Structures are given as C-alpha cells and as structure tokens.
C-alpha cells in the first residue's frame, strides 16, 4: 500500500525528516508517536503532497507507484486521505456542497442524488452529527471537536485505501474520541492506516498492529501496542540514549 524508503525532507532548507523507512499494508493500523517537532506531521503532509515540503532524498511509493508523479488531487483520487490536524476554513462553501463535490471527484462511481443523501445521513448519524452541519460553511466557526468529526465524515464518504490521521484525537473529549475511533475502525479493515498521536488513550478504542517511536526525523523503535503504553509512561528520553 504505502512504502517509504530512506526519506529525507526539508522545509525552507531545514532538514526535518532524516532517513525514514516505513511500509504499511492493507488492513494494518500503524501508530506514530513522538515529541512535538519530531517530524510526525511533516511525514503525513509530505505523503499527501504538501508543496511546502521538499523531498531531498529517498522515495515514497503508493500501490507501487512513485508518488512524486502525482499531484495532490491525483493522490486523493488514487485513494489517499489526510485527516488534518488543523483543517482549513473555507468561508461561504457549505459542507453539503463540499462533500458532494469532493465525493464526485474522488470516487470512481459516486452515488447520485438519493443514494448519496442516504449514505451521507447514515455516516452522519454514526458520527452523531446533526443535519445542520450540512448548511454550515466548511470549518467556519467550528469547535475543535466539530472539525475533527467533519474530517472523519469525509473519510467515511471518500473510502480511502490509505488514511493518514494527523492528531485527529487531539482536543477531543471522551465521547468525541469514542465516535472518531468508531469511524477509524470502520474503514481500517480495507485500508492502511497511519495514526499520528501524542496519547495512548486513542488506543483504548483503536487497536494498532504497529507502534513507532519517532525522534528527530526518523523512526527509532517499532513495537506492538505495548510500546505506546511504555512511551506514555516513560517519555522519549530513554530512546534518545538508545538512538
């Protein structure tokens, strides 16, 4: 699904990711944990194709294809999805219109009219979102939790084969965390998932296959769910030494 080989990434001349390797297969849930500034969000953004990040060395492959050949929207159409840590506000564009157009451009056979509305209603009730969301402007005046729910709603509708979730759990209360996790678990069996988080608590709801500790632009340790517990308990200093 996703293969990252010896990846080096810079932003405005500053190296952020320094030789990172990662392979994610279909049906696998990977978690990346690390301190602020370790390069976690950079990884998610560079995989999605953010123009501010420059790949100085190494490659990323998605379904065997080198990603540098694909524009951001082509990555989305190929089945990649990024749940943003800070989703952008698009004033004047209603959520309903936005979702419909987005689904139409990403899915090969987008559902029409009534079928789309049915799917939308189901996904929204699953995420305990009120219908009034649809007539609001995209992320405009949304609380942190509402923004994250809208991200997950988009993920459910776009049905990605690779989902990158950048701190989707940050700032969520217990109920919202449960609801968001439900969304992740729903797409996980048919997709590869990369979850970036600071907290182990999300993992009470979502069971990862692999947990990676990231320090200074590279993965220094990989383990199972128990690593997440250990990182939360012990912090990252012991890994600095190990690295």
């Amino acid at each position, binding site marked *: 699904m996703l293969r990252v080989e010896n990846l080096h990434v810079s932003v405005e001349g500053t190296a952020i990711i320094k030789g990172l390797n990662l392979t994610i297969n279909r049906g696998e849930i990977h978690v990346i944990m690390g301190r602020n500034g370790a390069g976690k969000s950079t990884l998610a953004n560079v995989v*999605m*194709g*953010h*123009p*501010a990040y420059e790949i100085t060395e190494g490659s990323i492959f998605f379904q065997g294809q080198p990603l540098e050949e694909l*524009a*951001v*929207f082509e*990555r*989305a*159409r190929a089945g990649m*999805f*990024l749940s*943003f840590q*800070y*989703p*952008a*506000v*698009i*004033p*004047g*564009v209603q959520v309903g219109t*936005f979702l419909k*157009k*987005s689904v139409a*451009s*990403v899915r090969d056979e987008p559902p029409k009219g009534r079928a789309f509305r049915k799917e939308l209603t189901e996904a929204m009730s699953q995420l305990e979102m009120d219908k009034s969301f649809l007539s609001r*402007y*995209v992320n405009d005046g949304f609380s942190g939790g509402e923004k994250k729910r809208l991200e997950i709603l*988009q993920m459910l509708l*776009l049905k990605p084969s690779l989902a990158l979730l950048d701190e989707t759990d940050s700032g969520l209360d217990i109920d919202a965390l449960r609801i968001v996790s439900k969304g992740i678990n729903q797409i996980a069996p048919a997709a590869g998932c990369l979850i970036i988080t600071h907290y182990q608590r999300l993992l009470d709801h979502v069971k990862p296959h692999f947990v990676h500790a990231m320090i200074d632009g590279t993965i220094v340790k990989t383990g199972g769910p128990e690593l997440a517990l250990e990182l939360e308990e012990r912090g990252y200093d012991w890994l600095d030494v190990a690295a």
Partner: protein
Amino acid sequence: MSDEALEAVGDYRYGFHDPENSTIRFDKGLSEQVVRDISALKDEPQWMTDLRVKAYRHFEARAMPDWGNCNLLDSINFENITYFLRSSDKTEKDWDNVPDDIKNTFNRLGIPEAEQKWLGGVTAQYESEAVYHSIREDLEEQGVIFLDMDTGLKTHPELVKKFFGTVIPHSDNKFSALNTAVWSGGSFIYVPKNVEVEMPVQAYFRINAKNMGQFERTLIIVDEGSTLHYVEGCTAPSYSTDSLHSAVVELIAMEGAKIRYSTVQNWSSNVYNLVTKRAVAYKNATVEWVDGNIGSKLTMKYPSVLLKGEGAHAEVISVAYAGEGQHQDTGAKVHHLAPNTTSNILSKSISKKGGRSSYRGMLQVMPKATGCRSKVVCDALILDDSSRSDTYPTMEIGNATADLEHEASVSKVSSDQLFYLMSRGFSEAEAMGLIVNGFFEPFTRELPMEYAVELNKLLELEMEGSIG
C-alpha cells in the same frame, strides 16, 4: 498558485457576435443634431427634445470626473461611438418574430428559457432598442405597467414626465447628462398600490455592434405597499475596439413599498460601463441593490439610496471581479435624510492577474436624521501579487445619535486552503473556483437561483472554453 488556476476564474463566454444588420444606423460621433435626430426619429414630445438638448449642452460643458480611473476615462473617444442603432423595426411580443440572428443570440444567453420558467416579464434590448418585450397577463390585469422606456413615454407621457429625471437630474454628472441627451431603450415600470409582483421581471441588454454606445434609461415607480423584483443582465461580444455603456436608472419606492434591483453585469472587457443608479425610499420603504460586476474594461457605478421617509431601509450588496485589464470602481452611497432610517452595505471584490477593484462608498447622515443605524462591510480577496484592491470610504455624520459599524478586510487565498481542498480531490483550478464562489456566497444567495448558478458557473473551471 498556477496560471491554470488563475485562468479558470472568470473566463468570458459571451464574446461571440452576430453580423451587424441594422435598419437605421447613425454615423459615428455626437452633436446637437444627433440628439435632435434621435428625438425626432422617436417622435417624442417637445419637452423631451428640449430636455435632451439641454442635457447635451451640459455634457459638452462639463469636465470629465477628476476621480476614479482618470486615464481610462480620458481615453474614451466620444467621436468614435455610434449613438443610435436600430436593429429591428419593432418590438415583438413573440420570439418567433424576432430576427433570427438576434433570436439565436438570446437563445444562447438562455433568455426565452428563463422567461418560461421563472419570470413575470421580459424585455430584451439589442443595441439601442428593445427587440422583444412581454409581460404576464395576470400582472397586466393587476395594473402593472412594464414597458420599454420608449413605449412608456409614448403611452404614459404624463407619468413619465412627472418622474423622469427627478431622482437623477441630467446635471448630476457628465454621464447622466450624456444619457439624458441620447437615451434609448431601458425599462419603464409602474406598480400600482398594494400589488405584490411575485415573479421577478427581467431586462437583458446586449451590445452586438463594434464601437457601439448603449444608453438605456430605466424608471421604476413602485407605489404604496407594493413590491417588485427587477433583474437585469448584460453581455457584449469581445472586440479590440471599445464600446460605451452609460445607463441611468431611477427607482422610486413609495410609502411601504419594496424594490429589489438585481444586476449581473458581464460585459466583455472592451466595454466602458459608466452607470448612474439611484433610488428614493419614502416612509418605511425598502430599496435593495444587488449588484454584481464581473465584466467590462472600466466600471464606475455606485448604486445609491436616498432614505427620505422615516423608517426607510437601504440594502446594497455588491460584488466585483477584476481580471486582467479590468478596473471595477464600484461601491454604494446611502443618504440618511430622515429619522430612524437604516442601511446595510456589503461589498466584496476579487482581483487577479493585474486587475484592480476599488470600493468607493458614501454614507451620509443628516443632522435631523436621528436614530439611524448603518453597517458597512467591505471584503477584498486578492489572488496574486500583481493585482490591486483599494477602499475609499467616506462618512459624513451629522448627529450623535447614529449607530454605525464599519468593517473592512483584505485577504489572499492561502496555500493551506488550496492544499486542503486538493487533498479532497479538487484540482487547483477547481479549488480556486470553490474558494471564489464561497467568497461571493453572501451575494449569490441573494440572487434568483438561475442567476446564482450562472454566476458560479462563470467562475468555475468546468466551463472553461465552453462558449455559448
């Protein structure tokens, strides 16, 4: 931001033109004789001829405005313009009788289709005069008068004489003088007391010939307790030489009346659009200008409302889009002349590829107009570094009881917004189109749906290259 994305916004689709077939065409250039000839041709009453001549003399004597885009204004060659062109011998009530070329043009513009679906009446002006005009029978039965201005003057001379030029005198400015001198076409509407005109009536203005001057004159009187929604659209072929559109629009809203006047101006980028629009609102009346300026080379237009009666309300919602080689100098003027009058002004502009948009506003509260409230919001969106946006607000507040708010913002499309939308499958051009449509949304939601859809289409990539 890529060039492709910039190209996608505001592509002009109405630049096609018909062969120039005319039944009467004046030689280019302006003189008192031209003014007299127009009046004679229309067989007008003497007072109108006299008014035209007086206005012409004022136009000749009056200097060009020393504000706005002076360079462009000074480059207008009044001698290289055709002031009158009749393309069809009469105004038809049936599209089948309109000459084929002209009918096809209006078909391509979707006018007959819109008429059937959602309009109460239509007037279609081609060059100097209306070629088609109709009104629904039920409106006629209720006493609503909806005519082209020439016919209005012929059939209701007293009513026209009573109100013509009372809101915008010929001496108001150089271009109102020009219009008064050479006016032709436009709409004349009278809605009698307590009649609610539910379906909008529409006027569509098309310039076809090169170097054409179009000078329609519109006068709308809505009597006590009545409502009217008037919609106008306009397009022209793209030529390398300039045309001039200089209209005068006068609205009169009697006590408790409500007028909404919606415009989607989409002239090709060789048209000078210099228009004077003003309304008078009497006690508890409401006047709304919904004004979209997408096309033209230079537009100078500031829809105004004189709030003359207590409790009257003005609403001016405008958008301007200035692309390559375009200057949209637009805005609003509201004069609070009576107590407890209220107004809202919302102006939104977008500039790209060197285009310039200017907001020019006037808010005046007279000393005796106590208890007035007004809110002015101006937002500008600039799509690249070569484009420009200016704001020239003026406030004259004559008493301390006024409650006023003014907000202004200038923003750019952020790379975060583009990345977010592209990560959802939108190409850069589509993303830009969405952002632009969203920015204009407070305007488009006030338009009849068909116009809103049309405006959004204009601004979206999907339509690129699909002319007609």
